[in-house]
């Protein structure tokens, strides 16, 4: 694709965007990527790789997602924690080839709330794992992934 300058700006309104390309310093990514956790299979093993020895089921974690996904490539999911001092939220998908999908660090001042979209290889339980005050809590929900279109 032979495109010229990539930056553009939409002035005014809620949609404002400035592309600054490569200008950000590397320290923005001082945080490491937890390779071990992302390559682990299984809920318990992944929890361990994330640093938890065990976790308690909690009704204070709310998973909002459809019971049925029309397509497994894009499954919308919202996780909200009402547990005081929530520090991180992780999304685990039991039957995916690798269990851990994402982990979000929630600093003070940021709501313990995250919406994203995940891929699901098949119908599976998804787990929301919350670390709060150093302890681990979780909630789970089954999402059915359906065949769509004319199939095959």
């Amino acid at each position, binding site marked *: 694709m032979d495109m010229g300058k990539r930056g553009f700006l939409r002035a005014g309104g809620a949609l404002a965007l400035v592309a600054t390309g490569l200008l950000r310093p590397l320290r923005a990514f001082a945080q490491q990527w937890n390779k071990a956790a992302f390559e682990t299979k299984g809920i318990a093993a992944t929890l361990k790789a994330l640093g938890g020895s065990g976790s308690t089921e909690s009704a204070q974690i709310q998973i909002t997602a459809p019971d049925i996904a029309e397509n497994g490539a894009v499954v919308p999911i919202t996780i909200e924690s009402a547990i005081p001092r929530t520090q991180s939220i992780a999304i685990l998908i039991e039957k995916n080839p690798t269990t851990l999908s994402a982990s979000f660090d929630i600093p003070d001042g940021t709501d313990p709330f995250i919406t994203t979209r995940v891929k699901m290889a098949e119908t599976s339980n998804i787990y929301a794992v919350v670390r709060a005050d150093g302890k681990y809590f979780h909630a789970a929900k089954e999402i059915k992934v359906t*065949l769509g279109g*004319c*199939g095959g």
Partner: protein
Amino acid sequence: MKRFSPLVLLALAACATGPADEEARQRAEQVFRGSFTHGNRAIAARVEKQDEAQALCTRYRNEPPKDVAEKIESTEAAGIRYPVPGKFLGDWRQGEKIAQDGYGLRFTDPDTKRPNGGGCYNCHRIAPAEISYGTVGPSLYRFGALRGAGEPVQRYVYGKIYDAQAYLACSQMPRFGKNGVLTEEQITHLVALLLDPQSPVNK
């Protein structure tokens, strides 16, 4: 002003099967042949020529007059090849796989050794475990339980899958046997899926 008035729509629709339509039909055939030129010629040849039922159903927009309908039904019925008596019921497990599978005969389906699927769930509810089913055709859930599974029903289901237009001219259902989409054996597996008391359809 340029807006298409309902009246014009009506006028265009009304002349759908009149003689003035023949001109539009011929022009459409010309356009059709000129619009699939880059693909597989064998597939193009297959769709350029319509068989009698296709041509009649196109002409009457799937609502043929009674005499035409009867002609289509008797012609199609005469073409059904039935298995020997007692061999209508195949294996419902294989039937379920065929009902799920949509493979075959598309221009990206080069593997002609892989059997074609029936794609039945695209249009029908069948076994209750599959929630992703279509509604273009009627629900077939509990088909055998509701209608029995004796020889006349077996024969009917086989024939209906083999050539739906033997029963209803211009049915939207593909003529799976007549057009060689499914083999006779595959059809017996589908008969079993619908009629076998052990099939999840009838549990």
